[in-house]
């Protein structure tokens, strides 16, 4: 079933509205846009595209870490009030602090009382399966575990929106697949709205309910694909013909987007 890109972008219950957003850096580099995008509450949106196409910039603009040169970004009130969880490309943990203190950091900065924070930290660590490692230091953990701590830190404030910037890019494939599985289950269970930047179309196809394909710099939306397979998906989904077909089509769309910056296609995989 194929539907037009407009129908995907015109939903009314938008959690995030990116309206004609462009970004030009101070040195004159046009990094992004213009990009127009509407994301619904509870959607898991993966963003794929060639290196330097502005995927991370788009995420930073949504997080409010940078100002758009043109256009605007708006978040639904419920998302804004609950705060944003942000997971970076590397774990970005404080090496001098224990896992518990690292996870508690956003609560400390928000001025949450210590007793209340302790419960939230324990809950966040339990969500990522690291309840026993609260007193460990980051260097004592594997790369995958450090990334779990980073996810726990992003979740500790109980945000409704999670922004993830190639979080598993530096991990080995087995660890990455395992974290993808856990993340998929966690986001479906908590009904989080997620925007997930990745270089891997396999990861995008496995995790998301929607995949945005971006063209080369300055990045624009070249494809918008909905994946109807229910979440959370099991490991077995990776071995289904449907998964292979989605990957093939995403791969073709990405290749086309590299050569042809205009909008390539919108499609629903069912």
């Amino acid at each position: 079933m194929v539907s037009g890109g407009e129908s995907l972008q015109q939903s009314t219950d938008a959690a995030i509205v990116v309206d004609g957003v462009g970004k030009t850096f101070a040195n004159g580099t046009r990094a992004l846009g213009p990009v127009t995008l509407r994301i619904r509450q509870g959607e898991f949106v993966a963003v794929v595209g060639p290196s330097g196409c502005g995927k991370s910039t788009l995420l930073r603009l949504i997080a409010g870490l940078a100002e758009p040169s043109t256009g605007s970004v708006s978040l639904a009130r419920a998302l804004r009030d609950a705060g944003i969880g942000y997971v970076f490309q590397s774990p970005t943990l404080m090496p001098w602090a224990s896992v518990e203190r690292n996870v508690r950091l956003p609560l400390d900065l928000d001025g949450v009382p210590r007793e209340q924070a302790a419960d939230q930290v324990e809950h966040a660590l339990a969500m990522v399966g690291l309840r026993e490692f609260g007193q460990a230091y980051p260097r004592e953990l594997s790369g995958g575990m450090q990334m779990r701590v980073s996810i726990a830190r992003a979740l500790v404030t109980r945000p409704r929106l999670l922004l993830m910037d190639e979080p598993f890019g530096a991990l080995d494939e087995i660890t990455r697949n395992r974290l993808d599985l856990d993340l998929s289950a966690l986001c479906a269970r908590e009904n989080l709205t997620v925007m997930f930047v990745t270089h891997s179309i396999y990861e995008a196809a496995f995790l998301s309910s929607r995949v945005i394909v971006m063209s080369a710099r300055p990045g624009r939306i070249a494809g918008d694909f909905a994946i109807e397979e229910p979440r959370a998906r099991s490991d077995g989904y990776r071995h289904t013909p449907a998964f292979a077909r989605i990957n093939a089509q995403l791969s073709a769309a990405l290749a086309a987007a590299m050569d042809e910056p205009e909008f390539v296609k919108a499609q629903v995989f069912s």
Partner: protein
Amino acid sequence: MNNRWTGVVAPVLVGMALLLAWQAWVTVYDVPAYIVPSPLNIFSTLVRDWGLLSGSLLVTLGVTFAALLAAVVLGAALSVVFVQSRLVEASLFPYAVILQVTPLVAIAPLIIIWVDDSRAALVICATVASIFPVITSTTIGLRSVDPGLLDLFRMHGASRTQTLLRLRAPSAAPYFFAGLRIAAALALIGAVVAEFVAGTGGTRSGLAYQILQAGLQLNIPRLFAALALITLTGIALFAAVTALSKLVLRRWHESELPRDP
């Protein structure tokens, strides 16, 4: 071969071998004590003149510690100011460089003339000598912050003070301690140089004054004994700063983590 052997026993053995060779050379060639005294002669002088030398040692130690404390407090405070604004750093940093590149022996007489209290003058001289490594290392450290963590602090609306205390200061700790090791040695050197300058002007002070007096009186064993005390003080100071660095960084920073051989 474990770390204890390589870190302590090996240099001690080398030192003992050198002392033995020195003692043998002086004894065999009958070198006069007013040219080069033997280690045993220096040691016996140290014991005999301990009353005189220990008083001077305390003066030198006092000047060194006061200067190091001032260098740490002023240097760290200046670094914090530099990090707040590139303009402030660009405006003030050249003057920190001027302080560093101007020879202490050239400005020490002026400081001693301008400052009435001789002890305060010595502390100022030693502070001038030792503050630069603290400023440069700490400034680099305060700037060397994980940009992702800075973004996280910004997202949560952290104040400048929160960012300084919770993020910049711990990030700067390894750099600060690297600067402190150099500053500790320079504080001692600065104190000794300033004491020399003050001593030539007739001001009685620490170990450098004893060296000066011993040289004038051709009491070379006492000169060496005072010199040995300065050397030992420098080693002890370096060891103390290293131990402090290890205490603070041992759980998380690569420079102080135990390594497999």
